[in-house]
């Protein structure tokens, strides 16, 4: 309780734009609220009961016309302000949801009531997230159970984390330090304990942190191990006898489905293909793949996705 804070720290590239929108609304609101308050007080005093100030003539046509002009004025002015603010804040929103291409992915799994973080290099954290200062970070997030939400007030970012799909959130930090992070979608008993801290470190500290927390394998290597362990490679490898789609170069391509739809092979497509194999059956393949629901957990799934992503460079186009 020692010092009074009115505004959160600004620690990301979009924070100042969001704050500008906030300050403009604050200013406009203060003007409108004070003007209405002042008018009400003024009228109460000037036109108080028993005062001798003028009264309107009930059916004066000039008065009617003046009224219409006033009403049109106070309809159009707010409308214009609203449309301008809509355009500005929508632009800021698109900036905040469009992930820049150079972003470094970090994977997040939310579960009642903790956050699992996994870095591409294989480093794992719980309720802590270490990132390098100034680097664009993309969080690829999913939930193992209910809906959660990932919120870092200091970065002005927030995104719900859902079971059964991946949502993303990106930020570019502008100052080093520790920043609070909250779950902001109510998720049950210990919702208020599903909090963490983001540690923004300069490049040197970050490299030493990466080394200190190194694990035996990267996410893609762990994914490759799972790929073999669960028998995926039995069908999805070059020398398999079963007619199954090849996965090299699959990620990011457009896949033609049996029922005529097309889908982009993104994280969700891979996840659905493993857990709900009958949902998106690719054209010219039989729906013979078994579901791995209940056998592969969300973190292993992310590692397998990271492995399939890493197969990008080899022999393009075989999946069609």
């Amino acid at each position, binding site marked *: 309780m020692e*010092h009074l804070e009115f505004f959160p720290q600004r620690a990301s590239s*979009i924070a100042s734009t969001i704050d500008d929108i906030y300050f403009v609304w604050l200013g406009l609101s203060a003007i409108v609220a004070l003007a209405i308050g002042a008018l009400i007080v003024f009228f109460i005093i000037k036109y108080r009961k028993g005062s001798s100030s003028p*009264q309107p003539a009930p059916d004066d046509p000039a008065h009617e016309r003046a009224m219409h002009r006033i009403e049109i004025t106070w309809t159009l002015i707010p409308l214009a302000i*609203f449309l301008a603010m809509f355009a500005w*804040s929508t632009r800021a929103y698109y900036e*905040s949801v469009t992930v820049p291409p150079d972003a470094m992915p970090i994977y997040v799994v939310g579960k009642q009531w903790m956050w699992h973080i996994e870095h591409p290099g294989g480093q794992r954290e719980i309720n802590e997230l270490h990132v390098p200062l100034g680097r664009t970070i993309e969080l690829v997030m999913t939930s193992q159970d209910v809906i959660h939400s990932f919120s870092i*007030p200091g970065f002005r970012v927030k995104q719900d984390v859902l079971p059964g799909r991946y949502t993303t959130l990106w930020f570019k930090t502008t100052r080093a330090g520790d920043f609070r992070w909250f779950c902001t979608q109510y998720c049950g008993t210990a919702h208020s304990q599903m909090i963490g801290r983001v540690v923004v470190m300069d490049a040197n500290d970050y490299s030493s942190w990466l080394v200190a927390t190194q694990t035996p394998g990267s996410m893609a290597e762990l994914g490759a191990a799972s790929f073999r362990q669960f028998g995926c490679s039995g069908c999805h490898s070059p020398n398999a006898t079963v007619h199954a789609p090849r996965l090299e170069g699959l990620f990011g391509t457009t896949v033609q489905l049996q029922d005529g739809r097309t889908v982009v092979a993104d994280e969700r497509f891979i996840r659905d293909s493993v857990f709900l194999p009958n949902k998106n059956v690719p054209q010219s393949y039989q729906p013979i793949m078994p579901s791995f629901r209940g056998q592969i957990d969300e973190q292993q799934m992310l590692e397998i996705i990271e492995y399939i992503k890493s197969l990008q460079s080899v022999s393009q186009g075989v999946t069609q």
Partner: protein
Amino acid sequence: MSSVSLGHQENYLAADFRLWSWLTTLDHKRIAILYTVSITLLFFIGGSAAALIRLDLLTPHSELVSIETYNKLFTMHGVIMVWFFLIPSIPATLGNFLVPLMIGARDLAFPRLNLLSWYLYVIGALFAIESLIAGGVDTGWTFYTPFSTLFSNTHVFAAVTGVFIAGFSSILTGLNFIVTIHEMRAPGLTWFRLPLFIWAMYATSLILVLATPVLAMTLVLVTVEHLFRIGVFDPALGGDPLLFQHLFWFYSHPAVYIMIVPAMGVASEIIGCFARNRIFGYRFMAYAMLAIAAFGFLVWGHHMFVSGQSAYAGTVFSLLTFLVSVPSAIKVFNWTATLYKGRISLEAPMLYALGFVGLFTIGGLTGLFLASLGLDVQLHDTYFVVAHFHYIMVGGAVMAFFGGIHFWWPKITGRMYSDRWARIAAIVTFIGFNLTFFPQFIVGYLGMPRRYPEYPPEFQIWNVLSSSGAIVLAFGYVLPLFYLFWSLRHGPRAPSNPWNAKGLEWQTSSPPLPENFLRTPVVTEEPYAYATQRSSDG
């Protein structure tokens, strides 16, 4: 306006004193009293939950109650206040009492449906209270899936059933009002001679009838998934949890207008009367309420900007939300302009109504912050949202409800209360409300999430301020209980028109006869003809 001769007839309150006569009454005025007693009881149950929440938040660690209990407290606070107080508040009490009186009718079109709707409300409320006694519910009033269907092991089913049943009470009330307003207006009472309160009830009824069935369907789907494992919302069964949010807010956003449009109607009646002026832009005010009711159905997605719905959907919902704000803004300007060249006096109902205008203005302005996509990302699910919707639903709707109760109290009970105490209560409520909720805007922008019994220490100062304000606010809400009850026995008898107000309800005795009017009134003038009245009074 001379009062109608009573003859030897008893008023509606004195017609029969037996409890049975109350429980089987078909008189819209008595049903309004039944509703008033029931919702007042639930208001204080929901209010006690709020008091415990504010006490617990005095310290960063949940020291008063366990976090499980805290989760159940805010759930019960929300469920009870939204469905068992705010939604029925003005329509079922003042609306029930006043709609026939204001249009010169003997009763509502379907008196038996009206009584049935009260019983449905009571059964629904009993289910909600049962879920509370059995151990509570911890889902939040929003019942988001898959938490509510698959993960919560509290008494979700009882609470959902209660809300489901109470929904039918809303539908029946809405239906009754629509038919009554269409079919039973007195001779000469054309649509544009209707008081704005009637327009408000009409717009609200449209929402009640069109939106509530969607809530009922959604709750049935939740139950079906829970009991029979049919995948609707659960991704593990191939369902979509966002579908629940779409359906829920398709009802629950219009539900906000179910709360605030009636409040706009009440404020219009009171401000016209105590400014002794016609309502500025009367027709525009009527159209604005219909516009709000219609556009209110198209903005539900603004509750879901960070939910994972597409950015394009978010863009459309943001634009529509700004558009629906225009009629709301105009209404504030019109109430202010109604004061211009009036003859203003500040009796208690007027203080409540002006308080409503002030708090609704702040609630509306902060709604614009939330409609702004990029900014909403920061504000969503924080205390900023909590403060915003309390300014609308409590600052706006409850302030107007109290104003309406004070304005029509002499008509309903036949007694006058102490205006001095009532003015004190109005001012204390206004101050207490701002002290409670204004600090929440600040702590919200700082990032404090809602539904947190524990929070970082830097947020404590704002929470202490808010909790201190809540004590003042509680005082403002409890005070009227005393002087209003006192007036029932000791208050001076009310004349038929104590405020010298326009409107048919003031032309019959206070309290009215069971059949409302001895002769069907004939309407020959516009509503709010206060200026003409002033010049003829001299």
